């Protein structure tokens, strides 16, 4: 904030010029502005994911806390250092780097070694944001870029650092005990087994833990209910467009259902809800117009289903969103709203 205020002070001119009429400010209309600022928006998104973060740390323990803290530190420090080197104003006070680090931390497994989380934070800002020129210029969601980098660098850690061995009391449920009898540690692998009927359990029994106290997901996937609470906050504050989470999750649910998976399990399992609510809605990397957002989010949903069902990647959401991020500039270019009074019936909501 400091540099901005400094500039405002400099601009003030002496008002009384030897007894003449007071000097008045000019300036072009509008003479009033909405209260929202970048900092306030980022702050509200942080508040929206806070319940999730707290509960995730409560379930995941100190290690989960360390993961989140390290990815935040990595992101914020990288932003500051790169901006110093580029001799441009350091803008960490707009909270956007902090938010990137936090969102990244929430998509990591709770028992990940802290140094991998730190690297993720660094990669998110350096490769996901600053190479493109900083806030507003990046094509891909920075947090997901960070996650993708460590995902391909340390796949073993990324797939085995979950809580499946029953670290917390909530996981001591029949469902988890059933899961523990399975030798794999990868949650969606289990989901795959369920889908392929290799595991003779009632899939509906998984839904409860996914709603509240999911042990086989990332920190931020700990509770579908808290994710939806966060989404509620974002919608109420007018920060995100409802089309994105609704269309993305809706596409996945309907398609999974058609392909024979329990639709509710499809909705709450894996990173779908978290990705649809907090990742796909990232301002910078999704299209501007209402119909553009629909195309984008339906695309995210489609790719997620394709990856979930037809690839051996355990989690499709991340790559689905990153892929659709790449299409955003094109969608923006071709899906303009129909200007008021124009005849052509191009997309309009």
């Amino acid at each position: 904030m400091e540099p901005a205020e400094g500039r405002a002070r400099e601009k003030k001119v002496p008002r009384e010029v030897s007894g003449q009429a007071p000097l008045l400010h000019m300036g072009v209309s509008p003479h009033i502005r909405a209260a929202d600022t970048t900092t306030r928006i980022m702050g509200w998104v942080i508040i929206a994911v806070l319940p999730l973060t707290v509960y995730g740390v409560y379930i995941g323990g100190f290690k989960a806390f360390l993961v989140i803290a390290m990815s935040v530190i990595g992101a914020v420090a990288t932003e500051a250092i790169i901006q110093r080197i580029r001799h441009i104003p350091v803008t960490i006070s707009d909270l956007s780097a902090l938010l990137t680090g936090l969102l990244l931390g929430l998509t990591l497994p709770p028992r990940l070694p802290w140094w991998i989380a730190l690297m993720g934070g660094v990669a998110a800002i350096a490769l996901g944001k600053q190479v493109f020129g900083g806030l507003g210029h990046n094509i891909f969601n920075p947090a997901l870029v960070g996650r993708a980098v460590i995902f391909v660098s340390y796949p073993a850690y990324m797939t085995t650092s979950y809580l499946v061995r029953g670290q917390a009391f909530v996981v001591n449920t029949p469902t988890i005990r059933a899961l523990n009898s399975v030798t794999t540690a990868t949650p969606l692998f289990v989901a795959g087994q369920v889908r392929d009927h290799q595991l003779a359990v009632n899939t509906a029994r998984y839904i409860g833990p996914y709603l509240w106290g999911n042990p086989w997901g990332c920190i931020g996937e700990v509770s579908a209910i808290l994710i939806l609470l966060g989404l509620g906050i974002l919608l109420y504050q007018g920060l995100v467009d409802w089309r994105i989470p609704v269309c993305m999750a809706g596409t996945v649910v309907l398609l999974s259902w058609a392909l024979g998976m329990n639709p509710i399990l499809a909705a709450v399992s894996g990173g779908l809800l978290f990705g649809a609510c907090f990742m796909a809605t990232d301002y910078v990397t999704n299209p501007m117009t209402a119909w553009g957002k629909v195309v984008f989010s339906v695309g995210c949903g489609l790719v997620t289903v394709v990856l979930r069902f037809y690839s051996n990647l355990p989690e499709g959401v991340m790559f689905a969103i990153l892929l659709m991020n790449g299409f955003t500039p094109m969608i923006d270019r071709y899906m303009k709203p129909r200007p008021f009074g124009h005849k052509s019936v191009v997309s309009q909501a």
Partner: protein
Amino acid sequence: MGWAQRMKRALFTRGGVHPEPRKVSSIMKIFPGPNPEQVIIPLSQHIGAPCEPVVEIGDEVLVGQKIGDSAEYVSAPVHSSVSGEVTGIKKYPHPGGHDMLAIQITSDHLDRPSPDLQPVAEPLELAPGEIRVRVREGGIVGMGGAGFPTHVKLDTPADKSIEVMIVNGAECEPYLTGDYRVMLENSEQVLMGAKIAQRALGADRIVVGVEHVFPDVIRVMREAGGPFGIEVVSLPCRYPQGAEKSLIKSIAGREVPTGGLPRDVGASVSNVQTCYAVYDLFYNGRPLTDRVLTVAGDGIAGTANLRVKIGTTVSDVIDYCGGMVGEPGKVILGGPMMGVAQYTTGVPVIKTTSGIIVLRADTMLVEEPGHFTCIRCGRCVKRCPMNLMPYQMASYADIGDWDALERFDLEECMECGCCAYICPTKNPLVQLIKVGKDGLARRRRKMDSLVGTGDGRG
């Protein structure tokens, strides 16, 4: 505002913004304005050809006497708002920003009326053409915004027909309450004026649009309009609800086509005070020499709705309201969304001045010169009432890429300022779009002259 309504707004608002209304003056009765020593009456207070003075320095003038006129059709005469002596005909500061030719009249404080215009016994019996001639003689222009001469607007071409005449009671700019008070205190007069305008237009029906947050006005107008069969519609409250195209869309459900006029969709819009001026002209024989405006803002001692004589300087009005408080910041004529900040309080009130907003230096908005930073939040796109892409137009205008700008419909932008208002990074969007419009117009002119002269030098 309840949480449910807020949620609805957050989810479904498209086009328009909701600035804080700040309409404290809505409970204040209309007061007579100051009796100035001098008035400065610009010869151009409307869209169209400026007037030529028809008086000379030293002439004696009366209230309502014509002092400037033009032979052009798209123009409206100006009248003296005081009685006294013409003491100057030269360039004076004008609310539009440039100095303009104006007539200064020193008042004798007697307010002797001119006998030139007389009331009409049965105005609703007059032929439409006759009404238009008189409206022009009365110097009536659209008092809501741009000041388009009313007689031109009332002149429906033979190949068009007007189905609905809309009386614009949507005063969507923050602070302003003049139209609201006129509707409340002079509802019958407004509707009688509207009836006369309807006759000239040949419109089938009259609809009054009022924002739903003013239930008392809606009630009063319904009571007054019922016997005439005039419909009063309650409109959603948002800026720019009062913009002509938005209003027609809200009331008649029709979109004025690009580059078209309201009459192309069978509609015509008149401001509340314009209707009142028509009434005043036909029933009282008074041309347009005063108007109601709101004086408000944190930088002025007294807030008020005043009936101010056209030509009264802003400084006279400010003194009349108790003067400025605090360090003076901005003096805005009009509302804070579209009004023009003045460099001097020596400018006069003209026919289109809907308010005088005085803001203090320590609380007003100071534009930060800075880079165009867009976090791509999409708000400007979502809120633009014309469904444009403000961030793209503004960023191309910022870097001066005129070729890219040609791809957008810049001329569709009504300069409402919603985009700049809502932008969280405080980009000067509408300001840059105006720059872009100018740049494109200059470029096109240059192209035309290149083609015209053929010497390749423009």
